[in-house]
């Protein structure tokens, strides 16, 4: 499959000389790309390299300023996604385009261009999602789904249309190793059926394993074309970032730090009938260590994070279930917990971690106002600007200055800014959800190193992530959340990905009772 005679086959899609110029940046500069039938073709590049713009052009979301799109030998103009879909192009976006107030089936129905019967469609969804190992309940409301589950909706939506070119924008960042395997099987099967796949990622090992060919982009241009199976991860990384990949210095954790974040006996029924009940959660994070919570999305992470951050506080009588530096905080709101030295990096960047139309300066004020930015109820504009500038500089946030609107930044750069903002406040306890999701390798290494540095300064760091590699890279101890309960905790050195991966499906030893194995995602 991989080594076909390319000259004999007509490319399914060929781009030639695609150029897209935005007022401030050239997103694509004379890009050429060919994808053959049945080929899994990787597009590699850092944030802002122009991968997403290129994919949007193919999918008809954006119009190129110059250049030609040739679909199966015929030049086409794709003015709208509906036209792309008619041609047989499907796309799974990195940022999902789902309506939260509708069910899974209704959302998928919206993308169906012909007439449909919702009942039949639901049955189809269940069938396709099961066949491809992505269980989904068509009747669930999207707002109750986690990021990982929302991605499944997007994937299934595309699969239903039997695409001939499938564009996947960083699809594996929210999946367990086992689920990644399943997804790869799915993609390989699709490719064998003749579907072409454009696979955007910066996970070099995955690309080496999965893809038949790769196009590397940097600064809007194609800088290399490679056969990933002939390259090493580090040679691909060099092509991608133009230098050697930075490595995190982990070191050993200091022993005997005081307990800074203590969760004891936390149980909480979900608000949402489709949510996950938290059941008897006990966890202690000491100063000077990073504890990681692994798990497939939708197993209680959202509920736990909202409870820990104070966005959904507990009742007063449960105040002692969460302690920060010895204070009972369970009943306190987010603001009061932050006053005690908690900072928090949420999963959603735009709209939760940052206000989209506000500038980076104004977004620093959102949680940074405790660092002397407000006096007598008035904002000290120069302090705010100083803080934002420091954050942009220290965390290498690529933007048009601190006056740039948050929504104008790429996902990874905004994430660097938010992580930076939460770190610069000198917290005692930092909770980070998916700290490097969608962030390119270079920036992810910077963020991980910052988290490790915080640990070395004696902070307690709790990381909730669905990326196991990341947890194994930075965490001192690791625990799994499944079905709203925590597994036993293990020192990272005493466990391995296979064991944690197994636990993620709910199969972990337990003192009191045998856990009820339930499929995640309520299938």
């Amino acid at each position, binding site marked *: 499959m991989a080594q076909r005679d390319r000259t004999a086959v007509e490319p399914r899609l060929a781009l030639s000389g695609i150029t897209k110029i935005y007022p401030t940046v050239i997103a694509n500069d004379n890009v050429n790309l060919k994808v053959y039938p049945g080929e899994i073709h990787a597009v590699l590049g850092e944030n802002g390299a122009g991968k997403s713009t290129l994919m949007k052009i193919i999918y008809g979301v954006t119009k190129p300023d110059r250049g030609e799109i040739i679909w199966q030998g015929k030049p*086409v*103009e794709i003015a709208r996604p509906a036209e792309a879909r008619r041609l047989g192009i499907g796309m799974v976006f990195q940022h999902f385009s789902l309506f939260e107030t509708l069910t899974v089936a209704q959302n998928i129905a919206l993308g169906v261009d012909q007439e449909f019967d919702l009942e039949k469609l639901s049955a189809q969804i269940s069938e396709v999602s099961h066949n491809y190992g992505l269980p989904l309940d068509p009747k669930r409301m999207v707002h109750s789904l986690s990021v990982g589950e929302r991605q499944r909706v997007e994937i299934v939506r595309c699969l239903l249309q039997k695409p001939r070119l499938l564009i996947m924008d960083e699809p594996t960042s929210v999946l367990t190793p086992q689920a990644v395997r399943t997804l790869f099987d799915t993609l390989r099967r699709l490719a064998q059926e003749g579907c072409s796949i454009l696979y955007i990622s910066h996970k070099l090992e995955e690309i080496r394993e999965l893809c038949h060919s790769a196009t590397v982009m940097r600064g809007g241009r194609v800088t290399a074309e490679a056969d990933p199976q002939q390259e090493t991860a580090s040679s691909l990384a060099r092509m991608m970032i133009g230098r050697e990949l930075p490595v995190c210095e982990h070191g050993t954790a200091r022993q005997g730090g005081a307990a800074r974040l203590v969760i004891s006996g936390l149980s909480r029924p979900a608000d949402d009938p489709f949510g996950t009940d938290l059941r008897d959660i006990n966890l202690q994070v000491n100063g000077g260590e990073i504890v990681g919570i692994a798990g497939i999305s939708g197993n209680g992470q959202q509920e736990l994070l909202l409870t820990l951050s104070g*966005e959904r506080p507990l009742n007063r009588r449960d105040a002692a279930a969460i302690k920060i530096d010895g204070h009972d905080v369970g009943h306190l709101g987010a*603001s009061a917990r932050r006053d005690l030295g908690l900072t928090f990096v949420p999963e959603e960047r735009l709209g939760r971690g940052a*206000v989209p139309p506000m500038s980076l300066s104004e977004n620093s004020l959102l949680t940074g*106002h405790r660092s002397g930015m407000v006096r007598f109820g*008035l904002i000290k504009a120069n302090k705010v600007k100083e803080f934002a500038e420091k954050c942009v500089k220290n965390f290498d946030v690529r933007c048009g200055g601190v006056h740039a609107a948050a929504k104008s930044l790429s996902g990874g750069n905004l994430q660097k800014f938010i992580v930076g903002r939460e770190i610069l406040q000198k917290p005692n306890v930092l909770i980070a959800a998916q700290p490097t999701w969608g962030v390119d390798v270079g920036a992810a290494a910077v963020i991980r190193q910052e988290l490790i540095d915080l640990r070395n300064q004696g902070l307690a760091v709790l990381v909730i992530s669905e990326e196991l590699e990341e947890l194994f890279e930075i965490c001192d101890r690791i625990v799994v959340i499944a079905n709203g309960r925590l597994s036993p905790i293990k020192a990272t050195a005493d466990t391995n990905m296979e064991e944690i991966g197994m636990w993620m499906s709910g199969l972990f030893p337990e003192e009191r009772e045998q856990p009820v194995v339930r499929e995640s995602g309520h299938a």
Partner: protein
Amino acid sequence: MDYSRRNGNSRWSVNLAMLKIEPRPQPSRLMGYLSPLIAVGLTLVTGIIFSILVGLNPLSAFYAFFIAPIDDLYGLGELGVKAAPLMLIAVGLAIGFRSNVWNIGAEGQLTFGAICGGGLALYFYQVEGAWVMPLIILAGAIGGMLWASIPAFLRTRFNTNEILVSLMLNYVAIFLLSYLVHDPWRDPDGFNFPESRLFSDSALLPIVLQGTRLHLGLVIAVIAVVLGWVFVRKSFVGYQMQVAGLADLAALYAGFKRKSMVWIGLLVGGAAAGVAGVCEVAGPIGQLLPSVSPGYGYAAIIVAFVGRLHPVGILFASLLMSLLYLGGEAAQMDLGLPSAITGVFQGVLLFYLLAADLFINFKLKLTTPVAKAAAREALP
């Protein structure tokens, strides 16, 4: 800080036959500031076309409507008299609007403020003293806040829609005033007219410009503009309300208290409207009548949006709206046009403003049928 609220990063687009509306990636800031001026220009053009259609000389109609009312000192004073309540109410409303608290009940809050302040003035009708007038204004502010606290309480406690509640309360307040001046508070020497007694001089607002009716209310309104500017641009509470207006989840994430913002938004608007109401009855009117406002509470909503929810913009917008009121009155007298002319112009102005805003955030594109055909052709 002029954020276009309707411009989410929506990926949708609307198809209208061959025309297509699609969101602009980066709405122009400059056009954001210019759109009120464009709207005013188009309103004028519409006015000229309209006057030609009804057989008037457009130039003399324009003069009669926009120039004659303010070509002397008295006219300018009248401009201030009408601008004052509009400015004051709009500044108060804008603070709520910025955090998505939609108080449509300024007319009722104005009326209830007038009832409280006016009631106190009637109670003190034989009392002389410099403290009477400030006390009455305070009563007006408290009255407006009380009336606004009803939708605030219902929204924060039962999650009712403040638009409906505040709007319906307008009618309650207006009929309450009507009842009071028809019966309990009717002037005993007033030949059964539905009017209260005239207030004592101590209760009346002083005139600030001799030879006109311009009263202290304008000074209060200008002070409110300055305070409003400080609140919006400089205060942390103002910032929090802006965040809540733009991204509810971000406000929750940062731990800002949404309920107190609903309260602040409604109470500030209510206080401003209440003061505006009491300034009307203790200013140009001098007594309680069955109706104390020619719709200032509604017109102020337009003023707030024409002024881009920004206090300085509101200052200019209120002068414009006031001129529309004066011009409408002049048009009735000099041109023999019906009184609805004021409302027509207000509506036309708001229409053009919303239209201009739409084109700032979205662009109109002709869809090319060629591209579609090409795409279809490519299908086997």
